[in-house]
């Protein structure tokens, strides 16, 4: 970093390059700092139940290290095999068990960071303190624009005695959404929940599971922990699904299908690829707004881009709201062969859909980050608070060398 400052060369941290927002792209050339040699597990503390690791470690390797001790990070993203833990810290990423164990920012105890000017700093060792604002949180989600995160201490957990799933088909997406929200408001505490709209249930879930699901919306959830407690939680959850919302029970098998195939959705044969044009319109909102966000995005994509298909599922659920993983997909023959025209069409979808989501109270986004792709909406999102973000950047990175041009922050080359 000192050399880069001396010559004013851009530095872009690179983990696995699995980010979908262009965050790791060296748009102004310079140095790409590939973190994957910093891949050591430094310590597993079995008393505090924490793991300290260098951030270039592949997420799966970190998980394996914990599993050897009968423990788990409970951070299980679909890109677990090809992404680094540093990438998740930089993007505030998430895994499939987020509803109980949280997103990565809920798991972090403390960080070591190399600042843009080359100082090595440590944030406070525990997250629950009242010693001023939390620097750990300031670096989480900073996407390499405020420094390089070199070490992290994460909370870890014992493996649960049982983890059980159950799935239902509801007559429509709205009813399934009401059922999901009611389960969250009941505070029964599922470890995961996922709801697919009617289109995605039909075209995607059926294909991944290799079975023909009924018409309607597929909802799956699970609980983990001590088996007796899990069974009781499941019993109460079933009452909500069956008695209150009349979901068609697919049984525990219907839930296990999802758990077994949870990563398959994102891999070849089931995922989209160039020459198709596709994007994940990741948005998060509270329960009062999330359905409106879904309808607003769907309407704008269907109306303005009739060649595109719109599908959506709700991946990560919290006490107050959930994440919408909406997608648009253009078939390859509807994407202009000319690169500039293809980029313009692609960006037009984002412009319309993201602004519709923000208007309805959505926040872009929940776990993919901003990067290059969404940088231009950050000012809309932050409003009058934007100068604070810019001021932090200017103070920490006076030469503007760290990942310039990302996250809506200045690019100075």
């Amino acid at each position: 970093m000192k050399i880069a400052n001396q010559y004013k060369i851009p530095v872009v941290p690179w983990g696995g390059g699995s980010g979908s927002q262009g965050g790791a792209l060296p748009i102004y050339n310079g140095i790409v700092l590939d973190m994957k040699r910093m891949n050591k597990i430094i310590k597993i503390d079995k008393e505090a139940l924490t793991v300290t690791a260098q951030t270039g470690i592949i997420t799966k390797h970190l998980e394996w290290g914990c599993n050897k001790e009968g423990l788990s990070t409970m951070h299980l993203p679909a890109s677990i095999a090809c992404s680094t833990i540093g990438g998740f810290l930089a993007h505030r990423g998430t895994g499939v068990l987020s509803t109980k164990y949280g997103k990565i920012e809920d798991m972090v105890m403390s960080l070591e960071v190399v600042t843009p000017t080359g100082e090595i700093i440590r944030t406070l060792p525990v997250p629950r303190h009242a010693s001023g604002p939390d620097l750990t949180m300031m670096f989480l989600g900073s996407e390499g624009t405020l420094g390089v995160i070199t070490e992290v201490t994460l909370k870890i957990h014992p493996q649960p005695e049982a983890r059980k799933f159950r799935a239902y088909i509801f007559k429509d997406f709205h009813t399934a959404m009401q059922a999901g929200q009611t389960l969250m408001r009941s505070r029964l505490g599922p470890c995961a929940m996922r709801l697919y709209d009617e289109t995605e249930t039909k075209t995607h879930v059926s294909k991944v599971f290799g079975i023909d699901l009924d018409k309607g919306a597929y909802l799956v959830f699970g609980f983990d922990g001590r088996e007796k407690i899990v069974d009781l939680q499941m019993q109460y959850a079933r009452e909500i699904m069956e008695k209150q919302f009349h979901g068609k029970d697919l049984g525990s098998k219907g839930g296990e299908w999802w758990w077994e195939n949870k990563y398959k959705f994102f891999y070849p044969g089931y995922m989209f690829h160039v020459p198709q044009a596709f994007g994940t319109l990741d948005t998060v909102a509270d329960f009062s707004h999330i359905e409106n966000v879904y309808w607003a995005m769907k309407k704008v994509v269907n109306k303005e881009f009739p060649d595109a298909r719109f599908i959506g599922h709700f991946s990560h659920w919290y006490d107050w709201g959930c994440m919408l993983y909406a997608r648009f997909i253009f078939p390859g023959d509807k994407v202009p062969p000319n690169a500039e025209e293809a980029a313009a069409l692609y960006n037009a979808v984002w412009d319309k859909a993201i602004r519709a989501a923000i208007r309805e109270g959505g926040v872009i986004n929940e776990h993919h980050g901003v990067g290059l792709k969404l940088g231009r909406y950050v000012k809309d999102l932050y409003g009058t608070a934007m100068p604070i973000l810019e001021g932090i950047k200017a103070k920490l990175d006076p030469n503007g060398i760290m990942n310039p041009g990302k996250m809506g922050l200045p690019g100075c080359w």
Partner: protein
Amino acid sequence: MKIKPDSYMFEMIRTELTDVVGEDYVDVKFADKFGHSIDYYWIPEMWHDRGRECPKPDFVVLRKSRAS
């Protein structure tokens, strides 16, 4: 920035970097730079698909520890 690879400044910076991390851990070969020019974002993938060039790093640096 884009330092011309045949300029003496390129070599000055490259050797300063190798002095810190070792000769093997500063990549300047096309293949290594190319591998760090496309992530999972659709735009660079499409750009590459259309035979167009994506911005590449001048140097790919692989550090083993946070400080020497």
